[in-house]
């Protein structure tokens, strides 16, 4: 049981980082399905950074920087040029797939998998001695602690601050924001860049934090799952937290059931998290908090 919970929380960390990060840009009215590609890029640069410097933290910084560049491209085309956001998202994903394969083969190519320094667990004294939850919650890596704090921080910024109010308003009625002097484009740019930073960190956590290595296509849909968590969470921080945990349980379950010798095919268990995601999205039709101007570029005047 304890082992299962540990794996659930490990699965939850990248989902939380990525979907809480993208919640703001979604709420501000942009649809970024390029998260998958951003996470993949982050995963590669996290490993590369750690490989070059020996420090997974510098690796994470490099991962975040790489994703800022990617988000800047996305934001320029969708906000400034007003290109179709879905098409741009697909483009980012395609670019990221090709880019990571090429760079991986250029820098990390060798017969065996290159192992790099990963994030080390930093147990919190005393708290980690609590039975069951001690190991689950308080014997984690820095990005994992950060992900938990981020739940609270995101909720606070979302509902208590001036910035949060602006973000909630912009996706709902950009023209109204314009008339009270809010720079719609600038706000969308910054939320997209922030989302990119978080996706980069999430990617780095998956590669350096979980496997200490990069393998091609290793994100395998988790970027899309993070995006689905925002929708399933009805665009609220706590809703996103809840749906990330549900998806993480699905992923944790997948590994447990694979390990257990069940008569059901191993491939079926591999499908499980995706099935849970799809079923959740189908059943959940309440979109009361979805921004009205989602995916629609804003034209002034």
């Amino acid at each position: 049981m304890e082992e299962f919970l540990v794996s659930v929380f490990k699965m939850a960390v990248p989902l939380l980082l990525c979907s809480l990060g993208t919640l703001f840009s979604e709420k501000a009215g942009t649809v970024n399905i390029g998260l998958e590609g951003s996470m993949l890029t982050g995963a590669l640069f996290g490993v590369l950074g750690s490989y070059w410097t020996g420090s997974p933290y510098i690796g994470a910084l490099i991962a975040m920087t790489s994703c800022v560049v990617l988000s800047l491209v996305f934001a320029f085309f969708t906000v400034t040029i007003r290109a179709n956001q879905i098409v741009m998202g697909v483009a980012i994903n395609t670019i990221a797939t090709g880019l990571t394969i090429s760079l991986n083969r250029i820098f990390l190519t060798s017969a065996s998998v290159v192992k790099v320094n990963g994030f080390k667990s930093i147990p919190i004294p005393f708290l980690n001695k609590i039975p069951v939850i001690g190991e689950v919650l308080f014997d984690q890596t820095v990005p994992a602690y950060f992900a938990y704090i981020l739940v609270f921080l995101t909720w606070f910024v979302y509902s208590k601050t001036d910035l949060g109010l602006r973000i909630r308003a912009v996706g709902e009625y950009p023209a109204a924001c314009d008339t009270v002097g809010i720079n719609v484009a600038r706000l969308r740019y910054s939320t997209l860049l922030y989302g990119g930073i978080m996706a980069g960190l999430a990617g780095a956590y998956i590669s350096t934090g979980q496997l200490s290595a990069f393998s091609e296509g290793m994100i395998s849909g988790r970027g899309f799952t993070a995006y689905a968590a925002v929708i399933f969470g009805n665009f609220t921080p706590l809703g996103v937290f809840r749906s990330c945990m549900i998806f993480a349980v699905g992923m944790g379950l997948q590994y447990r059931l694979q390990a257990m010798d069940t008569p059901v095919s191993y491939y079926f268990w591999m499908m499980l998290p995706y099935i849970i995601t799809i079923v959740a999205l189908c059943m959940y039709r309440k979109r009361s908090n979805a921004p009205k101007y989602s995916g629609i570029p804003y034209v002034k005047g």
Partner: protein
Amino acid sequence: MAILEMKHVSKYFGKVAANVDVNLSVEQGEVHALLGENGAGKSTLMNILYGLYEQSSGHIYLNGERLKLRNPKDAINKGIGMVHQHFMLVPTLTVIENVVLGMDSNHAILDLKKSAEEFAEMAKNYDMPIDPWAKVSSLSVGQQQRAEILKALYRKASILILDEPTAVLTPQEATALFDVIRRLTAEKLTIILISHKMNEIMAVCNRCTVLRQGRVVATMPVSEIQDASQLAELMVGQQVKLTMDKKPSTPGPCVLKVQNISYKDKHKVSRLNKVSFQIHAGEIVGICGVDGNGQSELVRCITGLIHPSEGQILLGAEDISKEHTSEILKKGVSHIPEDRHKMGMIMDMSINENLILMSFHQKPFSKNKLLNWKWIRSHNEDIVETYNVKTPDIYERAGNLSGGNQQKFVVGRELDRKPALLVAMHPARGLDIGATKFIQQRLLEESERGAAVLLVSTELDEIMELSDRIVVMNSGNVVGIVNQAEATRERLGLMMASEV
């Protein structure tokens, strides 16, 4: 001395002139009306003053100081507030969230409680109480407007621009708004009121400036205005006949007979309750009532968009209550729908395409499933000319036209089919005098031609002037049917408000 002056202001969009050499001077504490037809450049001028557009040439002076407005924030900081025709409130947020949204003085962590107290206090002082914690989407239109005005006042506006504020209000709400305006000017606020309704201008304004085709044609004190037709002439540029001469009708055979129809919506709420009336050829029957008392449902039942749960709708001798819309249209029914943008036209298509929406599958519009564009084009150019639609050509995107011109081509399309029954809902809503009179005249001509006309409107004057008989509706019931000669505003108003 004038508090606000616009000197030689011009604005061009590409080659199109929206404002040409406009001079406007507004005194402190006055209500200054900005008058003109749709497309005369009133809204453009005010958007320049609010920093949404930048003028192509000319200057703006506030208290003698030259203003450079790059965006609305600059205007707000100078004490200029604007209440747009389409409210700029985020419906999912509360009133107080909307009020403080985007203000420079906000702290990073919001103290909404304190703001709400200040706001409620201010609202009380202006006699405009409102719950700061109410969600905007739960407010009535009148309350939303109040929130908009208070939002501007909370930002310390000393000049308030109101863009067609009564267009969306009921008569009672409009009266309440005028009280608010008087109250504000008593507090030394200056108000610029955009309008094309003359009775409003007479009621609250001190001076008025009339715009026509982007230019100022006159500025004068309201006290010097002799009558409505003088203003109308200034706005339109030629004499406008404000009264219709309706000839006494000679009703022919019964065209539409609505018998005891009832309708319940998907929430099982009764929307229509045993409604009966009939329309004869050559007759106009008006349906009057406060918006939302079953008029929409009635029109939808007649045009086949929904089906009544009981009762019959006889077109001639045929029951059409279960028929599909396309069948009903084929039987000679034309429909000018209530919402021009959502039901009357496809904004992103050209006028040419919009004009054949109802008939493209018929000869001679198409042959062997192929559209006969050559014929369609000349046919549509005729319609555009006959119905006086102002457009560069018929390939213009329909959404680019002004409301009046959009409505004209919708009317043109529907009348071109020579209907036996014409169903017109709010045909002149939001239109200026010129377009309104034009469309009303067409309705009269249709009835003289022998069509049966069903006219649904919330404007009592329009109903009383055009209808032979008036059906008064209240909460889905027919309260009574009045002949034109016996109809007075008071009588209809009492019936509209009566308990059922």
